[in-house]
């Protein structure tokens, strides 16, 4: 790959995975994630990898399970409906401690809860990264593979229709991953070693029938991840009276709108959580130091706002300025995303007219 190439988001995500060493992909077509599958079906064989045209989302994620269980870097992509179908597997992949990368190209941003609260059963967590530009998508996909291996846990990348269909010039910068331990736990045939049991059922040691220990070990891992892996970006906070919190593609629109608002003399700043789980609650809390109000722009009925409120716990009022916004496509490119609309909502909030 040449240094900077024009790629649409979907293809850039796929290429980033390959450059991060992903050698297995399984997918089932669904707008707007299909282009990732298309790209993989063409590119993976070229690098000696395997791309499966899986017959359904459930089969796809379980093929990923098999490849990941053998120690191979593996990825899957889908959107809401497809991700919902995978919930049993996504929950249990965490219990099996299998590293893999799950890309959800959302229609809108309605899957925040699902991604961060575990759409599946039980107390598992995935690390969730939400890129805002095509370049960041590339970087975060590469990071996702790293974190997945580091923590032996699935990592989700939450994109959307806009990200997938925006083309920009991108660069692929491989990470230094020498600190990662080898995958000695994988199922590869027990050559010159004791046999393994790679399982979500909580008895990974042969003859160890105490699943409780295993679950306890996993449960103990999450607070550690929460401490280590918070990522966030913010801007113009120093004198901000109003702080707008937004993630993913819409955050890009919000930044633009804030620039407009600043030009009009409003003291507004922004926080963009990059990791949605763990949620960067400290930064959000600190960002509200001078602010009198926090506004949350998200393309859904109000989901991340819970995390913002939990971070601030009543310190300052938190108001929603986003919302579900429907257009003919159903893919989440609604009128609420118009920069002019966002400027208006921010202005309203700034002037104290927004409802909590």
């Amino acid at each position: 790959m040449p240094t900077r190439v024009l790629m649409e988001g979907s293809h850039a995500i796929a290429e980033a995975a390959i450059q991060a060493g992903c050698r297995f992909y399984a997918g089932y077509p669904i707008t707007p994630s299909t282009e990732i599958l298309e790209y993989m079906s063409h590119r993976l064989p070229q690098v000696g990898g395997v791309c499966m045209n899986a017959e359904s989302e459930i089969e796809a994620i379980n093929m990923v399970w098999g490849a990941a269980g053998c120690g191979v870097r593996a990825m899957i992509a889908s959107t809401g409906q497809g991700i919902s179908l995978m919930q049993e597997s996504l929950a249990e992949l965490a219990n099996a401690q299998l590293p893999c990368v799950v890309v959800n190209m959302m229609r809108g941003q309605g899957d925040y809860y699902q991604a961060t609260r575990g759409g599946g059963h039980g107390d598992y967590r995935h690390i969730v990264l939400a890129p805002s530009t095509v370049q960041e998508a590339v970087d975060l996909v590469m990071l996702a593979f790293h974190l997945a291996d580091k923590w032996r846990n699935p990592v989700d990348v939450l994109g959307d229709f806009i990200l997938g269909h925006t083309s920009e010039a991108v660069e692929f910068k491989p990470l230094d991953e020498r600190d990662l331990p080898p995958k000695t736990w994988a199922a590869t045939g027990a050559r010159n070693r004791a046999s393994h049991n790679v399982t979500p059922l909580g008895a990974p040691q042969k003859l160890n029938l105490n699943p409780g220990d295993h679950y306890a070990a996993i449960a103990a891992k999450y607070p550690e991840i929460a401490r280590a892996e918070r990522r966030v970006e913010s801007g113009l906070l120093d004198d901000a009276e109003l702080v707008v919190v937004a993630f993913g593609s819409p955050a890009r629109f919000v930044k633009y709108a804030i620039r407009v608002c600043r030009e009009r003399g409003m003291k507004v700043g922004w926080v963009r959580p990059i990791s949605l789980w763990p949620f960067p609650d400290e930064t959000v809390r600190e960002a509200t130091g001078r602010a009198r109000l926090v506004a949350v722009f998200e393309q859904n009925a109000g989901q991340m706002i819970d995390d913002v409120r939990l971070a601030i716990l009543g310190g300052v009022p938190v108001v929603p300025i986003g919302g579900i916004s429907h257009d003919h496509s159903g893919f989440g490119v609604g009128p609420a995303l118009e920069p002019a609309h966002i400027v208006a909502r921010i202005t309203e909030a700034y002037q104290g007219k927004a409802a909590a």
Partner: protein
Amino acid sequence: MSTPLKKVSAKPELLLSTQHHLCPGCGEPLAMRTILEIITELGMRDRTICVCGIGCYTAFPGIIDVDVLQALHGRAPSVATGAKRVLPDRFVFTLQGDGDMVSEGLQEIVHSAARAEKFTAVLLNNGVFGETGGHMTTTSVLGQRTKTTMDTGRVAEKHGYPIKIADLLAQVDGAVYVARGAMHTPSAIAWTRRILTEAFRAQLEGKGFSFVEILTMCPTDWYVEPSETPDWIEQNFTGTYPLKILKAPA
């Protein structure tokens, strides 16, 4: 006795413990033993990956001495696909019950066969969801009394017909070896050992998808004594599920 005696048979080498929680007279441990013996015989212990489904046989992953990928209920064929595709020189087999394979995960096994995945799928068919307490599965035979067909037995009009999965898979291009065995008599066990060996060989020779169905006794959920199970199989099962090779490479 004058001549010194030598041990000629013992628990399978690849069994780390002989203790398991399965019921008295259960057929599943017999199938497990047969498989483990063949793996030893073919010298494949250190390149074997067993992909295990969820049912009573899930007692085994913790006590067999080969690598195991434990799959979720119904998903073993897809997991095996992922494994075999990234490690094509390993020996990969799945172990599923009828509930796991023919009910919950029917589509995974049919799709895997059609994709000509080069693993061996083993079905332990006892015609019930054993682990949850003995409910009707897709393979329960007509007339069979289970916890969810207690009043009438399985009735076609209401519960439909059993799916003969081996017959179905034999129809699918991509499946190269399909056969059915059982565990209810020593001769059935010997037969099953033969077809399992043939199925494993088909995989090792890269021929395509291979499949062995094994009828296993479940005295608990058939509501009979263990010693009645061989007859039960002959009377209720082998009519619908005759022991034979349904498809073999030319």
